[in-house]
């Protein structure tokens, strides 16, 4: 029996001067690896923000399973070379709330667990600012995993990575999906990886959308990226 985590019905969203999403209907089941694809500016991040309840739809409904815990890796981050925190301490930032300033033993263990899950053991004490693009994305991913989410959302996490690093990151994500049953929404404009990793797709275009199991994604779009 599959369980529906997110159910979107006839959802539309417009900003003051233009419509971004229109009449969108789809579901996300537990355990699914959904690839959301579409050109830049088509509304992928906007859709994510609706799911995160940061934006209200202009029309239609979105139903999120009660108590669903979402781990989110945003598209942009302010981390420059002088960013001082170690990967470990950066990951710990997601332990928020009114609690003691220092971490509990359980929290420290959790940090080590997620660091292993993303294969960053060897550099976990190094400043995040000095990490490579791929290592940074893994650290962001680890941070999003720290509060045991049911659903993990990655917004263009592979956009700036070379092909090998891209696969390395997506292999980690796929392992989380298969081994732990973590539900994934992976946003990208890279057709190649969308064919390889997700089991479902949602393709947003200027004039509408298509959705379904990955086998139904047109093969002619397999070659390279489009922007």
């Amino acid at each position, binding site marked *: 029996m599959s369980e529906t985590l997110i159910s979107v019905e006839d959802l539309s969203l417009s900003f003051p001067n233009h419509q971004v999403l229109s009449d969108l209907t789809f579901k996300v089941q537990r355990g699914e690896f959904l690839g959301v694809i579409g050109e830049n500016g088509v509304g992928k991040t906007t859709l994510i923000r609706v799911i*995160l309840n*940061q934006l209200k739809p202009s029309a239609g409904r979105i139903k999120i399973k009660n108590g669903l815990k*979402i781990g*989110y890796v*945003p598209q*942009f*981050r*302010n981390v420059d070379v*002088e960013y*001082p*925190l*170690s990967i*470990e*301490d*950066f990951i710990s*930032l*997601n*332990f*928020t*709330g*009114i*609690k003691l*300033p*220092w971490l509990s033993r359980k929290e420290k263990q959790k940090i080590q667990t997620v660091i292993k899950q993303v294969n960053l053991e060897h550099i976990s*004490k*190094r*400043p995040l600012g*000095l990490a490579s693009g791929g290592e940074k994305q893994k650290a*962001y991913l680890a*941070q999003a995993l720290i509060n045991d989410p049911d659903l993990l959302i990655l917004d263009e996490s592979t956009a700036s990575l070379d092909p090998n690093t891209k696969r390395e990151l997506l292999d980690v994500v796929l392992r989380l999906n298969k081994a732990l049953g973590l539900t994934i929404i992976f946003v990208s404009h890279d057709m190649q990886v969308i064919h390889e990793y997700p089991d479902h797709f949602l393709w947003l275009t200027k004039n509408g959308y298509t959705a379904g199991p990955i086998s139904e994604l047109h093969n002619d779009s397999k070659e390279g990226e489009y922007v």
Partner: protein
Amino acid sequence: MFSFEFMQNAYLAGTLIAIVSGIMGVFVVARNMPFMTHTLSEIGFAGAAFGIFIGWTPLNGMLAFTTVSSILVGELSGAVESRRESVISAISGLFIGLGILFLSLSNKNSSYATSILFGSVIGISHQEVVQMAILSVLVLVVLFFIFRNLKDDSFDAVGAKTNHIHSSLISIIFLVLLAFSVSVAAQIVGSLLIFVLLTLPAASSKYFAHTVIQMMLLAIAFAIFGVWFGLYLGYVTNWPVTFFIASIEAVIYGSALIYNSIANKSR
């Protein structure tokens, strides 16, 4: 040296200030607010002048002005990050003008103004040390409770948005704490050199330490070292203490930058 009461008071107050500045400084640097901090202390100068004018202590005048203006800056700049600096410029211009006015109206001689601007250790009474201690403890207690959310908001503002952290509330609380810290620190190093304690030690620490708590401890150590050594050198030479503290912290910062560039080359 410690047989003089004013030196005891200076060391006590200086140590407190160093601790508060080291901790607050780490957030000041992470939130990219050295300019705001400097401006708050200029506003503090106006507040001190106002205090003298109406017969309060300079510290109380400073507290009043910096607290009100920190809330104003927080409210006026709102969510528009880029507007912050202009709002700060406007508010500080207004307040410094007022400071000059109050100073001239209160007919105090200019040495009063110099001691507010450049700091003075001789003038700190035991009663003021007690008040500074209370303020410092207050800042530390509030920090204790908001620590984790402030840390997330300061070191990962983008991520904090999805952690349901009330960013604008955190900002305002932080600004008020900063106003308190500035007012207290200005008693020793003076309004003009506030960043010597509230920015430089923390800015230096980030090249050596890589967790927030380690950075704080190191920033406290740098600040305490500067204050203690500066007070001692000031006592021995009769030169201004502020000069020594400023020089020590600048040398530490310079060394940190050199260390960092060497470390980066060998990486």
